[in-house]
Each structure stands twice: as structure tokens, then as C-alpha cells.
């Protein structure tokens, strides 16, 4: 009985996701809002600045590197600290546990 409920829920959720994905825009559609240079309210989107000024600001061909390393460098610093914290947690949990045995 429990399996049938799970199967029913999975089918319902799959149908819901398929129904929701019908309205997604096509990839690379230039008329879509997320590919426009100005937002709905008329202001310029920040991604437009990144695309146009990345090479001029940092002389780096790879725009993604400029965004990750320069414009959003505090975000990348946070990601590095997440990895460092994961390493420290493994250090504290596993290493102490092994020595106690």
C-alpha cells in the first residue's frame, strides 16, 4: 500500500514538473526578458555591465573568471571558506574518532 502511495506521488510530481516546464522560454531567445539589456523597470541590468566592461576592467579574456574572481570575489571567498570548513569538520570528527578506538 505504501509503495502505491509513493508511486502515485512520484507520478503526480513528474506531471507537475512537466507541466511547469512547458512554459519555460527557449534557450537563446533574444526576445526573452533575461537576455535584454534593460530590465522591466527600465534600468540597465548588471550582467550587461559585466559583458561589456569585463575585458576593459581586468584585461582578462575569460569573462567568467573576471566575474567570479573580481566582481564577485567575496562570494568566491565564501565558497573557499565553505570548503575549508568542510575539511576542518572532517579533521575534527574523523581523526578524533579513529584515535579513540
Amino acid at each position: 500500500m505504501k509503495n502505491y502511495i509513493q508511486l502515485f506521488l512520484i507520478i503526480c510530481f513528474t506531471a507537475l514538473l512537466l507541466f511547469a516546464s512547458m512554459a519555460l522560454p527557449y534557450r537563446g531567445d533574444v526576445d526573452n526578458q533575461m537576455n535584454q539589456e534593460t530590465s522591466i523597470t527600465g534600468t540597465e541590468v548588471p550582467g550587461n555591465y559585466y559583458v561589456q566592461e569585463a575585458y576593459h576592467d581586468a584585461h582578462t579574456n575569460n569573462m567568467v573568471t573576471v566575474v567570479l574572481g573580481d566582481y564577485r570575489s567575496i562570494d568566491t571567498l565564501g565558497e573557499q571558506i565553505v570548503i575549508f570548513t568542510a575539511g576542518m569538520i572532517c579533521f575534527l570528527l574523523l581523526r578524533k574518532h579513529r584515535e579513540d578506538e
Partner: protein
Amino acid sequence: MKKRVASPIVLLGSRLLSPYIMVFGLYVIFHGHYSPGGGFQGGTLLAASLLLIRISSGRRISRIQFSDYLTTPLAVVGVLIYFGTGLVALFAGGYFLDYGQLPIPGLDGAELRYWGILIIELGIGLTVMAVLVSIFDDMVRGEDE
């Protein structure tokens, strides 16, 4: 636990493969300005080259290549490279992590940003490599003495 049988073919194959993976990891870090890549990906490749020797040869040989006491200090050094770059730019008169203010003579703002990105990518790569090797060492500790 099953008795470990050392296979010279596996050891030789991984010894042949490991330096090339390491060179490719360094390439991914240093070429991140021009092609897809960067600190996280390159650090993972560097860790893969170290872990290949660790898996194939056991702890006694791999300790000669890269000691397990080095991993945590190197992770700290990687974080400090990133923080230090930001703090040097802060004390030199800019904002935190504003590479345009780094006190390196002979370079203008855009060139300074170029080198600042490379410095922090090196810090990220060092931390990712050290943390991945450290997690592996912690998990196998006491099982292959």
C-alpha cells in the same frame, strides 16, 4: 580486512599518469584567464593526481610524496593568500579585495586586476587540493598501516 596485495602494474601506471594530471591541473589554474578553468577545478585535478598515488601505493609510499601532516597547514595558507590579498588592497587604500590598489609597481589598474585574480586562484587551488587530500587521509586513517 582483506590483505593488500601490491600490484607493480597498477603502481607503475599511476606513477606514469600522476605527473601529467598534476601538470594539467596547473594548466587549468594558470589558463583560467583564457579558457574554462580556475582554482576549484585545477585544485581538484591536483588532488586527483595525489590521491591516485595514495590509492595505488598505500600510505607508506605516498607519505614520501606528500606528507599527511602538510594538508591542514596548506589549506590554511590557501585561505590566508585570499584573505591577505584582500587585506593588502584594503591597507593600500582601496576596498577589501579591490585588486586595483595592490602595491605592485609598474602595472596599471587593469593589469593589477589580472594578477590579483591569478593570485586568489592560486589560493583557491591550494585550499581545494589540501582539503580533498586531507579528507581522504582522515577517512583511511588506521586502515592501511
